């Protein structure tokens, strides 16, 4: 059976502005096991060139697939595009089976199957094993009820939606390989044209931040074999010229012992790759004595979720971090030549001008090298959603629910004034003399 994987074009500004694009890791993660199970697999990355829907349909039809699988980077904002694309695919290829996976469909499976007849099957949760089980069942024309981790319309009664028991969590992340052969590495870059891939050292996060769905989606923090991962990075560099690894993990540094083993193994590989990713300030402070290994292994930037300045807000969102720790982490990273990027969230219900003024002052004190402001954007599967259910929606185009557009009204401030603060804080942080010095005159050329 032929499977075509489609990465839909993302409407989010982060996908459309840069010239750099990263490979669709989620689709490659299911592509590898499908190839190993003997299925013919092809990938259409429509995000790479912002392909129009009719061309995607044409490209897919040319490959004569039995099954099309779509996913996206965990983003609800891509869902409307996926539905439009699936409708167009079904019009052209009526016998096609369309399978949809990722974070959004995992939680919204019943509504999607009810509202979008063009989508046949939803793969819930991590899909490496599930898609292989599903494809084998489809090939044998077997009973879909026996496949764990999916949802579908009942063949006997299409008005009824069936959810099978949850998939088993993959305990050994090295059991399934990534299907790198599905991409042309020269098409993917980051950090200003450096050939790049996305990887995961770990999945999950043990922390309880109530706005984040990653903890529940992955269910438990797990990691890959650190030495095997270092070898894979070495091979990607030597065979495909990969220069930069973007970690998609929420918390690659979750285990100090395993992260250190990975760093040492990567240093031993002796490949000049740069590493970027996200982590928690607490882990940076914890690893103060081994930050030289971070840098030696190639870590050039870590994103730290600062989110808010007040301890009360940090407690409310159950961030489990402290202002002191955040500042210390940024200072330590600077000492070791690692760029710090801070994310900061605005749009809390009771936010006033004075709060944003204080936010600006605190961010100036934190002194991160890079700043990324985000609008508060709730997801239904997070505990935070319940606390925001009563709030008024001001953006009804869900394609704009990408953290860069205000979606919920705040009580004391019109959108234009919040936007003014948002853009002013970004501008002030990035145009202050210290930031300009780091941009133009920093002694470390890699840093510049």
């Amino acid at each position, binding site marked *: 059976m032929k499977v075509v994987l489609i990465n839909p074009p993302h409407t989010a*500004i*982060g996908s459309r*502005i*840069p010239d750099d694009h990263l490979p669709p890791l989620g689709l490659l993660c299911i592509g590898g096991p499908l190839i190993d199970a003997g299925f013919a697999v092809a990938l259409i990355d429509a995000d790479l060139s912002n392909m129009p829907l009719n061309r995607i349909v044409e490209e897919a039809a040319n490959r004569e697939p039995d099954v099309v699988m779509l996913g996206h980077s965990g983003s609800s904002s891509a869902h409307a595009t996926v539905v439009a694309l699936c409708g167009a695919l079904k019009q052209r290829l009526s016998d096609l089976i369309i399978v949809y996976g990722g974070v959004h469909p*995992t*939680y*919204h499976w*019943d*509504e999607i199957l009810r509202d979008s007849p063009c989508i046949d099957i939803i793969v*819930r*949760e*991590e899909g490496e094993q599930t898609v292989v089980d599903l494809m084998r069942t489809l090939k044998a024309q077997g009973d879909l009820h026996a496949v*764990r981790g999916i949802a579908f319309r009942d063949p006997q009664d299409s008005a*009824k939606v069936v*959810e*099978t*028991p*949850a*998939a*088993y*969590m993959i305990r050994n992340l090295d059991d399934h390989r990534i299907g790198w052969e599905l991409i042309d590495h020269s098409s993917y870059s980051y*950090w*200003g044209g450096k050939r790049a891939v996305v990887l995961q050292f770990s999945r999950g996060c043990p922390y309880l931040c109530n706005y984040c*769905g990653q*903890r*529940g*989606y*992955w*269910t*438990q923090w797990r990691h890959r074999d650190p030495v095997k991962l270092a070898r894979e990075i070495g091979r990607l560099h030597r065979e495909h010229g990969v220069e930069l690894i973007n970690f998609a993990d929420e918390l690659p540094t979750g285990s100090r012992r395993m992260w250190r083993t990975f760093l040492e193994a990567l240093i031993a590989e002796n490949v000049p790759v740069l590493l970027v990713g996200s982590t928690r300030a607490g882990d940076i402070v914890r690893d103060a004595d081994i930050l030289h290994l971070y840098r030696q292994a190639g870590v050039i930037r870590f994103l730290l979720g600062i989110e808010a300045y007040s301890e009360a807000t940090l407690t409310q969102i159950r961030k489990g971090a402290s202002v002191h720790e955040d500042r210390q982490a940024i200072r330590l990273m600077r000492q070791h030549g690692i*760029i710090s990027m801070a994310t900061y969230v605005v749009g809390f219900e009771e936010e006033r001008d004075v709060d944003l003024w204080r936010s600006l002052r605190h961010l100036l004190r934190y002194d991160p*090298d*890079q700043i990324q402001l985000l609008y508060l954007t*709730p997801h*239904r*599967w*997070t*505990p935070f*959603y319940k606390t925001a*259910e*009563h*709030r*008024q*929606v*001001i*953006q*009804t*185009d869900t394609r*704009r629910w990408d953290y*860069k557009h*205000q979606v919920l009204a705040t009580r004391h401030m019109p959108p*234009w004034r919040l*936007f003014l603060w948002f*853009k002013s804080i*970004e501008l002030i942080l*990035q145009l202050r003399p210290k930031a300009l010095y780091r*941009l133009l005159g*920093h002694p470390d050329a890699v*840093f*510049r």
Partner: protein
Amino acid sequence: MRWYSEMGRRTWLREVFEFMFKTVRVREGQSLKTFLGPTLEAREYALEKANPANSARRIIPLTESR
């Protein structure tokens, strides 16, 4: 830093343009619950942690099966 600054400059200007000329906001919008639906918090944990060899015992409360 230079690459980031270049991206930032382009994104910043595009966002200002979009806000002023392309973004339509609703004045008297629905509540979040009416617009998107009620919370799905009960579905937060997605995977079955139990060992397949011992699958009769479920550790984590999951969504209702249908």
